[in-house]
């Protein structure tokens, strides 16, 4: 019996089967029961209806590091019908795609409404199979198709022997449906009980006392919430003083826009759905000119379309936070799949050269904390600050103590925004050439000074000039901000382990957890490594990074892209040779990708290992998918 440690995967037909309705309910209940949840692999397609959707959820007693590779303990298949594209049985997507990753001795629960599925191969591996005619029960017995998922939920709760008195489930239903009437709450409770009944029958028939997995509530010391990276980031942004946010809808950034639209007005802010990619960043720049902390959020294609405006912000010295929830590119690429392919764009995009700061969050926690940093840095350095996350983080859910949000919150302090009283005398120069590169910032509307901002090269007053010494001085002033940042604000990479003489596993972004998990795994296998994890990517603090990396025996950069974009930066800036483990197949890194890659690299002289040929196995000839 495994207690409080399992990986559940729920799959079904997108939109129709309500996969995430189930994982949302369960996630909330687990967290309220004091358990830890990590669900970073939400799998969905860039079409609204009909494609296969899945959502793996790791539940554990302590905060899990690992996504659990592609191994699954309990598989819940919501499809009630067959996939017309594939003839041979079993022919439901969830089973087809994830069945073989089911652990020996694992559990399968599937909707058997239209037919039973031949699962003899699974059963041969000791998998306990539970056919549940959930849709039929909902339709025929309860006359409401919509409760089919509650039937499944009830069945699942029984399987893992969790919340058997429906204390948590009942509470959830109350919160959700009480307003709409008692009958709905009752109907759902009844549906859950029917699902449970079917499970109990099957168990009795097989003589199973349990299924080998159980979740047990833990004492709740600190109240927890379950949030994804976009939610954490949005909260961080609002608490950091962001009061204007603009975005054109795009996966996986849209949910930030939706959060902002829902919450910003409450805080006297405004959120704008741009009519296109450029309108959104331009409006945000316009808002920022007036002194408002402003941000935009998008993903690859939307960022590419905004490139010209980074230069505008850079030269006019307008603070702007640019959130890039990376997805698999290039071009439209794979809109619902993760990748870390936009680092080079963040660092270099645009003609000519501007000061810019590139940060990347690697965990849901960092999505929150780094939002504060991004707005503070943008304010201080009056330049674009990129905050990179990726689809894994954007959609990935994790429980966090509520106290975390209060502890990590920073007060809003507007460094260097001049007030009327500061504007004495006639000589206000918006672009005064200073030692630090930072010029005093006024905003229009404050009496005492008027000023001109320009994206053309200009003098200290903002008047256009091409005078060579003036140009040189102004360009150098702007670029000097990066030196000041490196002195005053940059953070070195996080180091886990002792780097001396061991292979360094270097990463950034959402590879953080898999890296730490791989380190743990390798240690168990007798190989010590140190993890060097970057959050502050550009400008690269060479003075901190180079000596650090030189301590290791070899530098292995683990990145979710083709070239190894951080590895390239390290080589360029530190002149240190890097080796690379790269994955760009549209799936996050698994622990085994990294451990396998490290072993391969160390075994031979290879410089690059490109993982991801295999997982997850897909049997369908052609995967139906949209854009």
């Amino acid at each position: 019996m495994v207690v409080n440690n399992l990986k559940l995967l729920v799959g079904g037909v997108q939109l129709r089967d309500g996969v995430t309705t189930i994982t949302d309910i369960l996630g909330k209940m687990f967290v309220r029961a004091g358990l830890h949840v990590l669900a970073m692999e939400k799998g969905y397609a860039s079409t609204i209806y009909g494609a296969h959707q899945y959502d793996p959820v790791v539940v554990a007693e302590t905060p899990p590091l690992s996504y659990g590779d592609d191994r699954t303990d309990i598989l819940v298949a919501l499809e009630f019908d067959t996939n017309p594209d594939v003839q041979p049985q079993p022919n439901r997507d969830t089973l087809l795609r994830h069945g073989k990753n089911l652990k020996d001795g694992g559990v399968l629960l599937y909707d058997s409404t239209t037919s039973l599925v031949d699962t003899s191969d699974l059963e041969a591996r000791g998998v306990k199979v539970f056919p549940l005619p959930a849709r039929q029960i909902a339709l025929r017995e309860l006359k409401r198709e919509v409760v089919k998922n509650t039937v499944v939920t009830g069945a699942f709760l029984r399987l893992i022997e969790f919340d058997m008195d429906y204390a948590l489930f009942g509470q959830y239903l109350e919160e959700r449906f009480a307003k709409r009437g008692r009958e709905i709450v009752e109907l759902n409770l009844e549906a859950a009980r029917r699902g449970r009944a079917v499970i109990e029958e099957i168990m009795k028939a097989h003589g199973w006392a349990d299924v080998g997995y159980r979740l047990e509530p833990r004492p709740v010391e600190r109240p927890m919430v379950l949030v994804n990276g976009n939610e954490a980031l949005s909260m961080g942004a609002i608490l950091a003083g962001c009061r204007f946010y603009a975005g054109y809808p795009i996966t996986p950034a849209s949910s930030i826009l939706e959060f902002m639209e829902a919450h910003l007005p409450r805080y006297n802010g405004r959120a704008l759905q741009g009519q296109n990619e450029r309108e959104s960043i331009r409006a945000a720049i316009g808002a920022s000119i007036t002194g408002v902390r402003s941000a935009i959020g998008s993903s690859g294609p939307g960022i590419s379309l905004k490139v010209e405006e980074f230069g505008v912000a850079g030269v006019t010295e307008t603070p702007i936070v640019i959130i890039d929830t990376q997805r698999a590119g290039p071009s439209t690429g794979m809109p619902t799949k993760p990748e870390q392919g936009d680092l080079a764009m963040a660092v270099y995009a645009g003609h000519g050269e501007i000061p810019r700061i590139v940060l990347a969050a690697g965990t849901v926690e960092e999505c929150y904390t780094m939002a504060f940093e991004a707005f503070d840095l943008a304010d201080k350095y009056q330049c674009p600050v990129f905050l990179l996350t990726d689809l894994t983080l954007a959609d990935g859910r994790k429980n966090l103590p509520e106290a975390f949000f209060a502890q990590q919150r920073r007060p809003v302090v507007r460094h260097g925004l001049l007030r009327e009283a500061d504007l004495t005398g006639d000589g206000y120069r918006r672009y005064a050439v200073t030692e630090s590169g930072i010029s005093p910032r006024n905003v229009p509307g404050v009496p005492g000074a008027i000023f001109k901002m320009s994206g053309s090269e200009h003098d200290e007053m903002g008047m256009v000039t091409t005078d060579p010494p003036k140009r040189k001085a102004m360009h150098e002033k702007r670029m000097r901000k990066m030196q000041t940042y490196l002195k005053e604000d940059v953070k070195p990479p996080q180091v886990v382990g002792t780097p001396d003489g061991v292979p360094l596993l270097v990463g950034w972004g959402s590879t953080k957890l898999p890296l730490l998990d791989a380190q743990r795994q390798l240690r168990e296998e007798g190989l010590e490594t140190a993890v060097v994890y970057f959050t502050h990517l550009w400008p690269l603090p060479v003075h901190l990074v180079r000596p650090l990396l030189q301590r290791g025996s070899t530098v292995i950069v683990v990145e979710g892209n083709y070239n190894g974009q951080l590895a390239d930066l390290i080589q360029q800036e530190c002149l240190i040779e890097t080796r690379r483990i790269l994955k760009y197949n549209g799936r996050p890194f698994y622990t085994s990708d990294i451990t396998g890659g490290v072993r391969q690299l160390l075994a031979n002289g290879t410089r690059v290992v490109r993982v991801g040929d295999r997982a997850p196995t897909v049997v369908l000839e052609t995967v139906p998918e949209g854009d």
Partner: protein
Amino acid sequence: MATTPAAAAKVWEQNATPRHRIQWCPGCGDFGVLAALKMALGRLELMPHEVLLVGGIGCSGQIRNYLNGNGFHGAHGAPLAYATGAKMANPELTVITLAGDGDTLAIGMENFVHVSRRDPHVTLIIMNNGVYGLTKGQNSPTAGLGQTMEVHTEETPPFVDPLRLALVSGASFAAQSFSGDPKHCAEIYAEAIKHNGFAVVNDFSPCVTYNKFNTYEWYKEHVEDIPAGHDPSSKDAAWALLDDFDRRGRLPVGVVYRAPRKKKPHRRLPIWDEEFADVDPTPMLQPFR
């Protein structure tokens, strides 16, 4: 607001940047726009710090530097979008966008249509000369005004009528002016700036260097004041007026349309430390419990 009307007028009459020579060709229509804007802003008794001038890129966009008031100048084709953001963030500012026909109607077309729909209290003065002046006279989207095209090809599309486009897109104020008559322009600009919504002024501002067809003389022969009886609050009347002038081969000058929408009031967004003092995160966290 300036202390006295005379003081206000004076503050706008001075050159914003006296050390800078004005870089327009002698006779450029933009001089008229500059003179008219000075009159209009003075008359409205605004103070320069209350005004944000968002300039386009082109000969025309340089006007932001010749005029008092704060100025912003970013990418070509983008000024209306910056202006919208600035106005949304700080409704206390008077926001005026000054741009060419190329900036507004070629590369900036996307903003022109959508900002017309959004209807921010922003004034747009298009300094329309039928060419890309600054890049040496290529055809702009308004090139060909007054000429008919016999045979069409993709390379040389017929001209755009900014007023009709603004009306169809939802602008709540549409006017036309001729920079050859700065006094009249000033009246129209003042109306536009006062209008609580998006106000488009299509100003015919001759390019004496590159547009040898739509010259001062040509405009003088073609412009005609909008009759006193015209009811600008009626969209039907506005269309009828445009149709009538078109039929007669004339260009109406004056306010064609003015119909302010009922607007949701907005305050300036918080920017000062003290405005963030009591921000309660609970409503955001609540749904995740």
